[in-house]
C-alpha cells in the first residue's frame, strides 16, 4: 500500500504539473479577458505536434523553445483576427467561437498528421533511469518535466510580481475595466496575454505529448480536465490553478493505481451488486476515476463558484 501511495503521489504530481502548464494560461486568459477558451487544450495539442515535426529537423532541445513560440503566434493570430471580432458580440459568442475552433484544430491536426498517434519520443539524453523507488524506475524525463514546470512557475511568478507587464496583468485580473483607463492599449494587451497563455499550453504539449500520447484525440481528452482545474482553483487565480492541478493530478492517479472498492474495503455488508447503490458499492476505484473530476467540477460550481482561491465569482 505504501508503495502505491508513494508512487501515485509521484505520478500525480507529475500529471498535476502538466495540468498546471495548461491551466495557468487558461486561468490568466479568463481572468483578464473573461474568455473561457474552449480550444485551450487544442493549443496543448499543437505544441506536441509542432515539437514532434520540428524535432525531426532540429532535435528536441531547439523544438522545446521554438514550438511554444509558434503556438503562441497561432494564438496571437486567432485572437487578432477571430476573437477580437467576436468580442463585440459578448462572452457567449466568444465561448462559441473557441468551441468551434477546437473542432477545426482537431480536424486540421488529423488532416496533416493523420488520425493515428505519431511516434513522438523523448530525446536520448533524457532516456535513462533517474532513480528507483520500491523497485519501480523513475525516468529522467519525468524529472525533466518537473523541472520544466518548476521553471515555468518561477518564471511566471517573477513575471507577474516583478515586472511592469506583470503589474498590468495583475491589475487587470482584479479590475479588467481599469486597464484601458490607465492608458494601456487594451486590444494589444489582450492579444499578448492570449498568445502567452497559448504558448504555456504549447509548452505543456511539448513535454506532455511525450509523456502521454500524441494523437488528434489528446485535446478532447485533456480539455474538460483543464476546465475542472481552473474552476476548482478559482477562475483567474494562478496559485489556485497550481493547487488544483496537484489535487486533481494526485487524486486521479491515486484512483487509477489503487485497486479497491467500497465492498472490498468495508465488506459487502450483504449489498448485492445490482441497483444504483449496489453497483456503486462494488465499483472498483479505477472505474470511478474518469467521473471524479466532473463530480468535483459540478460540486465546486454549486457550492463554491469562486473556487478555492478565486476572488470573483465566475
Amino acid at each position, binding site marked *: 500500500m505504501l508503495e502505491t501511495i508513494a508512487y501515485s503521489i509521484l505520478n500525480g504530481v507529475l500529471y498535476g504539473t502538466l495540468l498546471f502548464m495548461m491551466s495557468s494560461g487558461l486561468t490568466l486568459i479568463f481572468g483578464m479577458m473573461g474568455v473561457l477558451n474552449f480550444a485551450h487544450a487544442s493549443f496543448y495539442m499543437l505544441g506536441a505536434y509542432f515539437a514532434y515535426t520540428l524535432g525531426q529537423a532540429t532535435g528536441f532541445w531547439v523544438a522545446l523553445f521554438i514550438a511554444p513560440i509558434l503556438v503562441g503566434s497561432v494564438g496571437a493570430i486567432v485572437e487578432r483576427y477571430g476573437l477580437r471580432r467576436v468580442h463585440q458580440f459578448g462572452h457567449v459568442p466568444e465561448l462559441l*467561437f473557441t*468551441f468551434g475552433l477546437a473542432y477545426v484544430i482537431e480536424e486540421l491536426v488529423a488532416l496533416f498528421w493523420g488520425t493515428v498517434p505519431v511516434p513522438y519520443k523523448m530525446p536520448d539524453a533524457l532516456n535513462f533511469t533517474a532513480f528507483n523507488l520500491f523497485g519501480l524506475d523513475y525516468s529522467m524525463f519525468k524529472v525533466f518535466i518537473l523541472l520544466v514546470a518548476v521553471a515555468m512557475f518561477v518564471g511566471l511568478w517573477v513575471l507577474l510580481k516583478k515586472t511592469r507587464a506583470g503589474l498590468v496583468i495583475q491589475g487587470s485580473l482584479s479590475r479588467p475595466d481599469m486597464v484601458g483607463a490607465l492608458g494601456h492599449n487594451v486590444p494589444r494587451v489582450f492579444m499578448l496575454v492570449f498568445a502567452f497563455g497559448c504558448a504555456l499550453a504549447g509548452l505543456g504539449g511539448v513535454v506532455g505529448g511525450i509523456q502521454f500520447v500524441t494523437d488528434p484525440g489528446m485535446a478532447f481528452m485533456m480539455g474538460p480536465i483543464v476546465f475542472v482545474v481552473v474552476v476548482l482553483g478559482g477562475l483567474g487565480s494562478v496559485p489556485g490553478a497550481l493547487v488544483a492541478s496537484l489535487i486533481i493530478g494526485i487524486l486521479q492517479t491515486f484512483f487509477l493505481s489503487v485497486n479497491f472498492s467500497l465492498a472490498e474495503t468495508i465488506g459487502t455488508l450483504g449489498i448485492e451488486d445490482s441497483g444504483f447503490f449496489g453497483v456503486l458499492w462494488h465499483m472498483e476505484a479505477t472505474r470511478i476515476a474518469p467521473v471524479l473530476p466532473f463530480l468535483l467540477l459540478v460540486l465546486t460550481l454549486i457550492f463554491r463558484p469562486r473556487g478555492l482561491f478565486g476572488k470573483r465569482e465566475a
Partner: protein
Amino acid sequence: MATNTAVGKPSLLKLWPWVVIPIVAIILPHIFDSGHDINLMSHMSIAIIFALSYNMLLGNTGLLSFGHAVYFGLGAYVAMHVLRMVNEAGGEGLPLELIPLVGALAGMGFGIIFGAVSVRRAGVVFAMITLGVGALVHSSSLMFTDFFGGEAGLFGDRTYAPSMFGIDYGSSVSTYYLIVAWTLVAAILIYLLKKTPLGWMANAVRDNPERAQFVGYDPTFVRFFQFVLSALFAGLAGGLHVLSDEIVNDEVVGQIQSGAVLLGTYIGGIGYFVGPIVGASIVTILESSLSTYTDAWVLYFGLLFIGIVMFAPMGIVGVIHLQYLSWKAGGWKGNTGIRLYLLLAGLVGIFGLVCVIELSYHYFRSWDPSAPFGLMGFTVDATGAMPWLVSFAIAIAGFGAMLLHAKPMLARRTGAKTEGGKA
C-alpha cells in the same frame, strides 16, 4: 390605440407555415421513398424537436448549455427500457405511439433534478455546470452497464408493441409519420410557450435579470421552469429516437450529441423560431450526405460554425430575414447587382476553399496521393502543382473580390444613399 391592440395578433395569413409544413412532410416520403431517405427524414424531425427544445434555453432564456444531450439521452434510455418491457410482456402494454411520452417524462424528471443545481446562475457558470453534468452522465453511462447496456447499448423492437390505431410500424414510412405527428405537436407547443407569461419572462430574464426581479420575478425560477420544459421536449426527441433506430448506446448522452445540437441551433439562428428548424435540418442533411462524399465534413462543419459566429451571429435565418427586411424597405434599389456580385464572389471563394481542402485531404490522408481522384468533375493529380494553383487562385480571387471590391462598393453605394436620404 388601435395600432396597439393589433400588435402581435396573429392574422390567419401568418399561420400558413403550420399548414404548408405538414403537407410537405406528408408528401416528402412519396418523392424520396428510399429507406435511407425516409430514415434521414425521421432523424431530421427528431433533430428539429431537439434543436427547438435547445433554443428554449439558448435563444429564449440566454442559457448556453453544453450538456443538453443528457435529457435527450436519458429520455431515450428510459423509453427504451419501457419498450423492452413491452417486448418482454409479449407485445402487451403501453401503445407504441405513447412511448415517446415516457421519454418526455424522463427528460423532465432529470431536468428537475439537474436543473435545480444548474440554473442558479446564467452565463459561464451555467455553461460549465452543464458541461460537468454532461460529462458526468456520459462517464456514468459506461459505469452502470445494467441501465445503459454498456458499449453495445440496448435494443428494442418497435413492431412487437401494441398500436392505438392498429398500425403496423414494421415499415419505416409509418414510423416516420408517427415521428412527424409528434414533431408537429412539440413544435406547436414550443411555439405557444413563447407567448405565455413564462415565455415572456424568459426573454426578460435573458435581457435583464435584475429588472425582472424588480417586477416580482425570481430569475432562478424562470430559468428553472424553462429548463425543465426544455428537458421535457429533449426527452420526447430521445423517445422518438428509440422508435426510429430501435437502439440506444452511450453516444446519445455524449458530448458530441450535445455539441451537435448547439451547432445546429446556432447555425440556423437562435433569435428566430424557425432558426433551429432550419439549422437542425441542414446539419442532419449535411451530416448524412456530406459524410458519404468527403472525409472533411467535420472540418466543414467547424468552419461553417466559426463563420456564422464571426460574421452572422444572427444565423442563416437571421441573414435571410435582414436581407428581406432591407429589400422590403427598398434598400436593394440600385444595388441588387452589387449584392448578387458579393454573393457570387463569396460562393466562388468558398468553392476554391473547398477544392483546397479536398486536395489536402487526398494529399495527406490517402494511401497513394498520386492516384488520380475526382475533384468537382475533374480528374486531377494531387501531387502536381496545377490543381493546387488553380484552387488557391479561385479561392483568393473569390474572397479577394468579395472583401476588397464588392463589399467596399456596396458600402459606398448604400452609405451614399442613406446620406442622400437624410439630406
